[in-house]
């Protein structure tokens, strides 16, 4: 059936069968081969610069404090000699650059000094608290994505072609109000409903698996409602596309259409916003941890501020900032993988 000579196609030799399964591997290969140089180096530079800024800012905390930090720590009644001793001990009388290098080197080696209040090494305090925060944030992330995407998909499916206008109004109302509620207010509300009134979940602390539910929900719910709004718009957009019409003309089941045709393309669009919201989880967790007396980095940080425990403050901020930076980087990489077209470029 040769009418014209077959067109020459892009791409080289056939790929190995092992790579066939997942789009990710294919994308990684393509990424590697073509634009990974620019992309990787760009991301790396961005990462390093951000970390540098983080170091400078945390370093600057102590430097920028008006007055004498040593005196602040020891209190007005301490003798001038004691203040001088502490100043020297903290290295505050050395030139700025030296102090910074000392600080930076220490940070990279995880030697962050000792707590002013407990005397324990800051790094061990941080490491002890870190898993709790990560666990809370992880659960919140999962809840946010699940609720946001599913709710948004549902809303999109129900409101195509201006159907169910009533639902659209209700949806906008819920997401508008719920999305504007700050996480700590949401925490109080949830606490009231579930812990005090219904007594299902514990009010405070980390007592077994169920105690992560309320704090994670408090962080995740408002953000997930915002995500749902965007997901709904993306869903409406995708449902209007021609390839959905193709899927329908193939008489595919609703499930397959939504799972393989709608969802992947919605995720493409929603991942950008998702990235911004991820950061919101970290910030939200700092406050919510305090509502529920969750033994994580947030409570640590907030306790150490009035206590003027500068090493701990610096360390906790540094660690939280690091989590944010790593999260942002991961989001960028995921975005590039999920959208092979954007990363590589079409014909």
């Amino acid at each position, binding site marked *: 059936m040769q009418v014209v000579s077959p067109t020459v196609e892009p791409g080289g030799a056939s790929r190995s069968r092992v790579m066939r399964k997942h789009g990710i591997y294919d994308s990684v290969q393509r990424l590697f081969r073509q634009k990974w140089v620019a992309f990787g180096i760009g991301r790396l530079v961005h990462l390093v610069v951000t970390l540098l800024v983080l170091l400078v800012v945390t370093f600057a905390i102590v430097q920028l404090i008006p007055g004498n930090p040593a005196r602040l720590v020891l209190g007005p009644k301490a003798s001038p000699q004691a203040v001088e001793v502490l100043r020297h001990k903290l290295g505050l009388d050395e030139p700025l650059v030296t102090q910074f290098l000392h600080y930076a080197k220490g940070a990279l080696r995880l030697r962050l000094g000792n707590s002013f209040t407990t005397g324990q090494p800051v790094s061990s305090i941080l490491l002890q608290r870190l898993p709790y925060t990560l666990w809370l944030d992880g659960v919140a992330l999962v809840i946010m994505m699940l609720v946001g995407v599913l709710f948004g998909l549902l809303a999109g499916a129900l409101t195509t072609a201006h159907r169910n206008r009533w639902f659209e109004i209700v949806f906008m109302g819920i997401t508008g109000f719920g999305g504007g509620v700050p996480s700590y207010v949401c925490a109080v509300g949830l606490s009231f409903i579930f812990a005090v009134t219904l007594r299902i979940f514990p009010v405070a602390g980390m007592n077994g698996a169920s105690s992560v539910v309320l704090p994670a929900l408090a962080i995740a719910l408002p953000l997930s409602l915002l995500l749902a709004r965007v997901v709904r718009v993306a869903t409406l957009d995708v449902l209007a596309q021609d390839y959905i019409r193709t899927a329908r003309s193939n008489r595919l089941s609703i499930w397959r259409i939504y799972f393989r045709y709608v969802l992947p393309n919605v995720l493409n669009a929603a991942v950008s916003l998702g990235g911004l919201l991820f950061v919101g989880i970290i910030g939200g967790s700092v406050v919510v941890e305090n509502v529920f007396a969750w033994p994580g980095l947030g409570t640590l940080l907030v306790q150490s501020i009035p206590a003027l425990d500068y090493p701990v403050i610096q360390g906790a901020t540094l660690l939280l900032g690091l989590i944010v930076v790593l999260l942002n980087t991961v989001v960028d990489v995921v975005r590039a993988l999920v959208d092979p077209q954007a990363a590589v470029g079409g*014909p």
Partner: protein
Amino acid sequence: MSAMSRDGDTTVVGGPLLHVDGLTVSLPGATGRLLPVDSVSFEMAAGEVVGIVGESGSGKTLTALAIAQLVPFPAQVSAKALLFGGYDLLTAPPKLKRTILASRLSMIFQNPMASLNPAMRIGPQLIDGLRSSKEFRRREARARARHLLGEVNIARPEAAMRRYPFEFSGGMRQRAMIAMALMAEPELLIADEPTTALDVTVQAQVLEVLRQVNREHGTAIILISHNLGIISEICQRVLVMYAGRIVEDLDVTALATGAAHPYTKALMASVPSLERDRSAPLVTIPGRPPRLEERLPGCAFAPRCGVAIAQCSTERPELAEMSLDHRVACFVAIKHESEVMSRGEA
């Protein structure tokens, strides 16, 4: 007329592959329901290639969508009869309808660039073309997809199946769509402006593929276009649509000389040809087609028609047989023909 059905039994199908009677598509409008497709009736035999020609807005795409049962909300389909392959599409239970349509009817659309899922590879999408059919087995489906990609002249089909749509050119995507449409060995393939978005050179390839599909597999084709040239290339019969109605139904060979409806004649006249006198102005049809809200009683073409009589504005002309295999919806044409006949007999 009998036909071999899929399972090998010989079923006497006492009628045409497709029987459409009074097909209407309605849309809710500000002042009542609008009818972009207004009582369309025609028949198709198995293996026939029929073209539907008309300007944009004439209702040709919606007619096709209505037949394929793919009309989008809020439009609604109604008809006196809609029979496909012996089944009544209006009353068939949903599951049965889904299987029949998946196995025996396929449609390809105008814009191939956006018709493929960007997040899925070509292979799985083609396999999806067979998924809802009666007999679906994965391995066979994959083999068939590979085979069909080769048939539509896509080089190295095995590798192509693992590609994403964005790696294909427009012409390749349209050919992949044709391959997808052929997966279930449909008896009827509806092609809605398959070449409009493509270069002229690619157009020829696509048309050739369609011609071969019809020749080698006996697949009936409905080809929709606003381009008479394309229609006359591969179609045997033409339906001319105007303002949601069929105004003429004739053999392609009769188009050039034997067209009866004033609109059809005007269309033919407006096609510029290389032999024409270059200095003469291009022929156009004065006026414009009525908008959906403007449809008045009587013939829709009457306001623009050069030979309209009083009856044309008050009464709506129905499709009437002018001669064998030639129907026309025009009072003037019918009257003229009967005069010729009576004169001939006299």
